[in-house]
């Protein structure tokens, strides 16, 4: 699966995107655990519910199953317009 980071999130991850080939990450909750273990500075933002998640360009709040070819985006609140 592909994970994309936007705005100041990518200043924490130092990556705009990364490819993940893991059989352990089966759902969004597991992905969240994975990214905060890899990028501990993201934890407080996840805890404060600042992070938004999109799976295949759709906002996702609940824990859903992830498939191999999914594109998961992680970003802060939007500020367009």
């Amino acid at each position: 699966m592909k994970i994309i980071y936007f705005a100041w999130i990518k200043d924490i991850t130092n990556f705009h995107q990364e490819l993940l080939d893991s059989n352990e990450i089966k759902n969004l909750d597991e992905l969240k655990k994975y990214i905060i273990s890899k990028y501990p500075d993201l934890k407080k933002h996840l805890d404060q519910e600042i992070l938004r998640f999109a799976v295949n360009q759709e906002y996702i709040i609940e824990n859903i199953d992830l498939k191999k070819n999914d594109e998961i985006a992680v970003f802060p609140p939007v500020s367009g317009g």
Partner: protein
Amino acid sequence: MIKIQKEDFNSDEEIHNIKKLHSNIGAVTSFIGYVRDNNNDKNVQSINLEVYEEMAYKQLKRIINKAYSKWKLIDCLIIHRYGELTVNSKIVLVTCFSEHRKDSFDSCNYIMDYLKKDAPFWKNEFYKNQNEWLSNSN
């Protein structure tokens, strides 16, 4: 029509290109957002607008469809720029075309609300010696 682009646009031309297709359009409401020189009491020099383009198209299409289901609309145009934009630059144009005024007004306002809440754009505001990522308040 949805356009996500770096380039500036001419609102009169963009509106005319749609208006000329429909002689039943009587009312056109447009909102244009600009980069202001001051935000939260800081002197802004420019912004850098980041976009998740694929998702932006998807979300903006949904916003337009919701507006169509609520009002009697003939056409609808959203242009949202990204990249580096200096003070006084246009950021966004939302134009709603209808027979009567209320439909175009209410839908344009609704789309702007929705766009600010849900469309995946992020503003990085640049001041003289620093910069700051924003999140929408209004």
